[in-house]
């Protein structure tokens, strides 16, 4: 099997922030006492006059960013996903989404791969509760390189955005030439027997599964969908038309996430048999990231198992 290099998404974020900060003097960055973890500290060291540590006050953090935005700045706000999307949801709703201000929320430590800290810190509901907000766009990159281009493109777009990053290192599946467009999914591998859509860490597992099943004569179309909202329904529909079956894998609750977003679209335009593979309406638990992915069946083996079962049940 191919060896993958592992890199932090949040490193990509910290690096691109500094790069953008050099060029755009109206960028400001806010954090809530987690700047070394989220990697915004790099920006803070380089541009201290444009960096604000708000302390452990996430509600204040979000509304303050909104204030900077109405005064003409372009704020990036970072903390852990559970505190950004969860703790400060109503501040995001009123001060950012309803006010429709240009604030980019980049939340690190999303999903189960937070690891040892356990359920309190494992945000598995953020796609759902961010996606439901009008004006809000929701993204989640699959690797280091996608994070770089995604943050750049999100910065160039106007209005509120939520980007989920992770604590754990993710396998590198792209390179510097990788592109990302808001509202676009990418067919990474063509196939005819099953459409498999992933986001974040699961894209890697889907690619491996597709490669392995190919040897067994099963042809899987792998789609990467980093743009959860706006969703690229067309690309997924075109694939579903071809394969007739859609499998979605995500490091998120099976309620309200990417799977739900896809089914909302397909059920109205091209009803298709679907399987949602994620965290099954339960809280997470402690363990290391690798163990947890295996425990919840979100590692390549688990994903392969679920796909085989789905294909068998719908043969």
């Amino acid at each position: 099997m191919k060896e993958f290099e592992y890199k932090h998404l949040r490193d990509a974020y910290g690096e691109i922030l500094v790069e953008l900060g050099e060029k755009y003097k109206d960028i400001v960055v806010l954090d809530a006492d987690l700047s070394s973890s989220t990697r915004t500290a790099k920006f803070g060291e380089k541009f201290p006059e444009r960096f604000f540590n708000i302390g452990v006050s996430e509600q204040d953090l979000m509304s303050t960013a909104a204030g900077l935005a109405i005064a003409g700045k372009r704020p990036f706000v970072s903390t852990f996903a559970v505190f950004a999307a969860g703790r400060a949801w109503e501040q995001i709703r009123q001060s950012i989404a309803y006010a429709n201000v240009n604030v980019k929320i980049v939340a690190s430590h999303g999903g189960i791969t937070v690891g040892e800290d356990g359920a309190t810190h494992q945000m598995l509901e953020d796609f759902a509760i961010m996606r439901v907000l009008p004006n809000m766009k929701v993204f989640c990159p699959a690797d280091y390189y996608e994070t770089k281009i995604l943050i750049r493109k999100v910065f160039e777009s106007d209005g509120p955005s939520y980007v989920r990053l992770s604590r754990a290192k993710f396998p590198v599946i792209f390179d510097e030439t990788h592109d990302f467009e808001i509202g676009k999914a990418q067919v990474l591998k063509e196939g005819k027997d099953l459409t498999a859509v992933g986001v974040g860490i699961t894209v890697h597992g889907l690619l491996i599964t597709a490669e392995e099943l190919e040897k067994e004569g099963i042809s899987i179309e792998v789609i990467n969908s980093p743009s959860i909202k706006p969703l690229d329904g067309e690309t997924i529909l075109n694939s579903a038309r071809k394969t007739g079956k859609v499998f979605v894998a995500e490091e998120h609750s099976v309620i309200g996430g990417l799977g739900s977003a896809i089914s909302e679209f397909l059920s109205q335009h091209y009803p298709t048999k679907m399987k949602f593979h994620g965290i099954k309406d339960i809280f997470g638990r402690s363990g290391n990231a690798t163990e947890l992915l295996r425990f919840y069946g979100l590692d390549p083996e688990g994903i392969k198992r679920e796909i085989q079962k789905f294909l068998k049940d719908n043969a």
Partner: protein
Amino acid sequence: MINEEELKKLREISIRIRRHIVTMTGLAKSGHPGGSLSAADIITVLFFKKMRIDPKNPRWKERDIFILSKGHATPVLYAALAEAGFFPVEELKNFRRLRSHLQGHPDRLMTPGVEMSTGSLGQGLSVANGVAMAFKIDKTPRKVYVLIGDGELQEGQIWEAAMTAAHYKLDNLTAIVDYNGLQIDGPVSKVKEVAPVAEKWKAFGWEVKEIDGHDFKQIIEALDWADGVRGKPAVIIAHTLKGKGISFMEGKVKFHGVPPSEEEMKKALEELDKQEREIRK
């Protein structure tokens, strides 16, 4: 300072604003007259004496910014904006109606002069902090004002923001607490005591001044005092009367979120007419 002529002018404006508050909420059969009337004199001074604004150019680059953190007091804000000329006074009658740009709570995208969407309490001070930080980065003399309710002080976020403003030495920000002592469920002291208010702000690193929030001279002096505070944010605790200016609304919890009936509206307007005649004597 201020001469008698100017004081008289401000008093007249405040009566017109109170008239709008009564009429808007009465016609809409909805809205929050009590806390709008308590803030009317403060708002009058801000919009007609203190702030650098240009109603013909609401997005003027040099303007001061006002954030209504107690967002339910839209009647007083809309009345002041209309009187100042941000939009025609006639539009006030559409307050809270379908297709009106005068939403129940402030909407920065729909109403000229409204700087921030507020309504869910506790967020305005944080927003004002963000504005003040941006002004510091830009090294502009622009100022930001934020009006906070006393019941709103029960929101934890206010105190998060109070710490932030002091930490970042936001001396270009002035907060005003409309301390009218009443909230929806009753007296603030009974629902959940917020006192001692001045001591709390002092403990959070703010410069504090307490005034009578219906005395124009005191309001003006306090706002000028805030300009001189350096290295710290300033807060003005304005002791006010809920429903101020309408005898039967004064100090009445009921009028927090209940509009005057048709008959009450008529009576209130008569009272305001009488007050106006007295000023003009």
